[in-house]
């Protein structure tokens, strides 16, 4: 047994267990001395760190691979290496820890006492620009009602346009457009403003990652949107409607009435990626798995399960970042206060410890919990796919009765509505012959989804 193996075998016990251990001699201080050294004795500030020293060697992966174009295109092979070999991978290049197993990821997501989320505006270095009002009750209600009222008509309008045009790239013409259309309707924006708003909104929500040019674009978009919303907010305050802007305008909080800055930050922190990416990935998977698509067409209640399974199989938001609030030991590593943890939903959702044949896309799979996560990720003994933060549960003893449904439920139902409208409206939906669609992110850490999904249908 080589020294390295001895250390691995005895890691944690502090004593070599080799049967042929050499004779023990004693030093002046009465501490046993062996040729292998004084394992576990003497002064150690960070024993865990030391014990894990050899375990930290991660020869099967290079940190550079985790920011490579190959990873941006298809992260799953590398995520599998991490999950199966280095469940808590210390990434020296990105100065982060990768957590990739289902139970580990969910344990961090549910541990607000030890780990914090930093909002997008923190990554923009404009933490004090405005307040995030997403969790104010009037805003939640306005959002839920606007989405419920508009999901069906928005989807019908888009499908109508696609029919009129005769062909479509569903990734953009349906999934991305539906998410944006719904947002425009929630805000009740004038029709002529919608294109410019959508472009600015997209720049704003895609600029806080690493690309400095995109960051400048995003910051400019934030300023432009603030200028755009200022008069609109004042008008809605004077003549309120049912929309989200009116709900924000009506708020009078401890820190003063809501401002245009608050509205923009509320939109920035909100998320349309799960709806857009989830819809696009569902359609991509259904169109490339005709047998599963048939299941949905045969039995329409399966549309909901198709969406949830697509979020599990191909999560559009691959990872969420958390920061240790203080020094904590997790998964055999000492994570320093302020340390960044990359919780990979993409890896956890394909964890074979949770799902049988996780690489397979199976609509209605029996080992996926189909219920809304309420304060925990498991129900009925089954793991839910990780696609949403836990958020505020909609039904919980601690939550008032008059709370609207959770974003999880709203998004799921909206996507189901959109899928059903699409399937009804475009009979014979199929991939364009010769099309080879694939999932990819456009930039590092961006939505992992299908951007090019050309289809034909019966006219």
């Amino acid at each position: 047994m080589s020294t390295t193996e001895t250390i691995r075998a005895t890691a944690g016990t502090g004593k070599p267990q080799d049967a042929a251990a050499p004779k023990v001699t004693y030093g002046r201080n009465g501490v046993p001395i062996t040729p292998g050294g004084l394992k576990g004795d003497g002064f150690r500030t960070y024993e865990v760190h030391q014990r894990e020293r050899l375990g930290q060697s991660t020869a099967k992966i290079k940190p550079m691979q985790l920011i490579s174009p190959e990873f941006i295109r298809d992260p799953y092979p590398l995520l599998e290496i991490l999950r199966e070999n280095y469940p808590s991978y210390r990434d020296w290049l990105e100065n982060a820890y990768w957590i990739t197993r289902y139970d580990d990821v969910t344990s961090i997501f549910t541990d607000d006492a030890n780990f914090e989320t930093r909002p997008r505006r923190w990554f923009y270095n404009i933490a004090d620009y405005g307040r995030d009002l997403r969790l104010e009750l009037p805003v939640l209600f306005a959002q839920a009602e606007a989405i419920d009222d508009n999901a069906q008509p928005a989807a019908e309008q888009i499908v109508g346009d696609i029919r009129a045009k005769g062909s479509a790239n569903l990734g953009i013409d349906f999934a991305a457009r539906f998410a944006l259309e719904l947002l425009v309707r929630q805000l009740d924006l004038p029709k002529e403003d919608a294109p410019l708003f959508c472009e600015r909104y997209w720049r704003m929500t895609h600029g806080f990652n690493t690309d400095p040019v995109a960051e400048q674009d995003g910051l400019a978009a934030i300023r432009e949107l603030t200028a755009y919303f200022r008069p609109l907010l004042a008008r809605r305050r004077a003549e309120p409607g049912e929309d989200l802007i009116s709900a924000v305008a009506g708020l009078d909080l401890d820190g003063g009435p809501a401002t245009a800055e608050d509205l923009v930050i509320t939109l920035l922190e909100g998320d349309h990626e799960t709806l857009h990416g989830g819809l696009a990935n569902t359609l991509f998977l259904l169109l490339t798995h005709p047998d599963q698509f048939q299941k949905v067409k045969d039995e329409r209640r399966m549309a909901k399960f198709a969406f949830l399974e697509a979020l599990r199989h191909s999560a559009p938001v691959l990872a969420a970042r958390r920061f240790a609030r203080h020094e904590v030991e997790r998964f055999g590593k000492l994570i320093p206060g302020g340390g960044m943890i990359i919780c990979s939903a993409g890896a956890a959702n394909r964890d074979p410890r949770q799902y049988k044949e996780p690489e397979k896309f199976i609509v209605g799979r029996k080992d996926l919990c189909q219920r809304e996560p309420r304060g925990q990720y498991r129900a009925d003994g089954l793991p839910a796919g990780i696609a949403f933060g836990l958020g505020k549960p909609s039904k919980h003893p601690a939550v008032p009765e008059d709370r609207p449904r959770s974003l999880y439920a709203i998004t799921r139902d909206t996507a189901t509505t959109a899928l059903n409208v699409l399937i009804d409206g475009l009979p014979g939906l199929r991939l364009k012959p010769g099309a080879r669609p694939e999932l990819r992110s456009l930039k590092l850490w961006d939505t992992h989804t299908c951007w090019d999904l050309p289809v034909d249908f019966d006219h």
Partner: protein
Amino acid sequence: MDSITAFLSNIVENTDAKPSEGSGPSAKPGSVPRAQSLSSHDFPLMPVGQACDMGHAPDGTPLIDSRIFNSFEFFRNPYPYYRIMRDHYPVFFDKLHNCYYVTRYDDITTCYFDDEGFNTIPKGSSSGVLGNTQLELSGVEHRRRRNLYGQHLVGKSLDNRLHAIEAIGEEMIADWGNLDESIVQDRNGVRTVAIGKAFANEFPIRVVCDVLGFPKESRKKFFYWYNSMMSGLGGSETHHQGLEARQDLEDYVGTLVEERRAHPTYLYDAAGDPIGKDIISKLCETQIDGDYLSTEEITSNIALVVGGGGETTRGAILNMWYLLLQHPRQLDAVLADPETMWDVAFHETLRHSTPIGGQPRHNSFDIELHGVKIPAGSLVNMVDFSANHDDRIFKDPETFNIFRPDLYSGKLLRSGYRKEGKCSHMAFGVGPHLCPGAWISHQEAVIGSKILQRHLKNPRLNVDKMPKDFDGSLLPIGLISAREVWIDYDLN
């Protein structure tokens, strides 16, 4: 009709991950993508001293793309990018590598002195290869450990050992005749020698071995451990090898320590009188907080002394010769007055091209620096490279000039870096963590160079054998020290 998504077609086109060609609906299972290029973004190679265009803010401020730090362009030509950071982002938040860079001389020195606000608590900056060292301690814990062997590296106990350093150098050069063709070649009365392989790589290690008290016969192994450990730092690709070398070293030291606890060994001065115990023997009998040091701790201390005393000094010697040989007028001045000018050249070399680029710190509290809010516990990199090229301190910093009037080149002290109206370079840092080996490394480089000077008649650079830049000129030193310097000299 479809105008709200019209802008997307442009965005989808302009992307880092182009659609893969010919791949099916999903990638082949089990296929592992390989990292193809050094960077995720191809940065053009620029003439030395010019930065490539990474975009501009609306007000014209040049932007820094974090991916540049992984690129070859940055490795060979880092200084123009540090200039952008100093001028426009004195505290730069690098989201890709999750860290902050502090780049101005004054900010860095302030932070180095602030032992409490900027701690060195182990976040594994050596990634476990060196182990627990005082690099990662603060306050009194740090001071106690540092003082254990710091005394061997300075002052009288070092002066008394200079003869040994000299002897090691002479011994190595005497052996040149027996070296391989790939290191030393004789042609027509001219000898061509790679002074890295023939001298600079091993000289500092042998000196350190000697001061530590390693037996002579262990040198070869020691050299291997050293090389593996150094190349395995920072979680690099050879990390695993570094960790195994470290384990081997620890095993070896275990035996040695056992021996030395019973029979300590001594260092002797030129007259043969004992000066004191060597560092290992000293560490064996040292108590901290009422407890003897464990082998593991002793190994970490040794690894640190070796790591600190090897690569840096080697780099300093090679960089110094490389730069001087490219500036013949300055080389002549040094050769004409070796007693003072080698010291001056040493300091200017470390200012112009330091082998160690900076030190990591972690801020203990939430702070705001130059308008950037840094949450407690963040990794804050103090970029010594940049401090040394800060034109707020050094005029015309990109020029190598041993006659420069604004660089302090006397003895470096923990307490200060501004002497006689001049500033010292930051290659050794400043404050409580000032490199304890600053003085011995200075002595090694200067004594080593004086020995080389005695043997190299009419030295000149063998340009043909030196690595070239993309345009055919000599490769700049950039972020890593010169790997090799080929010198021609006359044998008679």
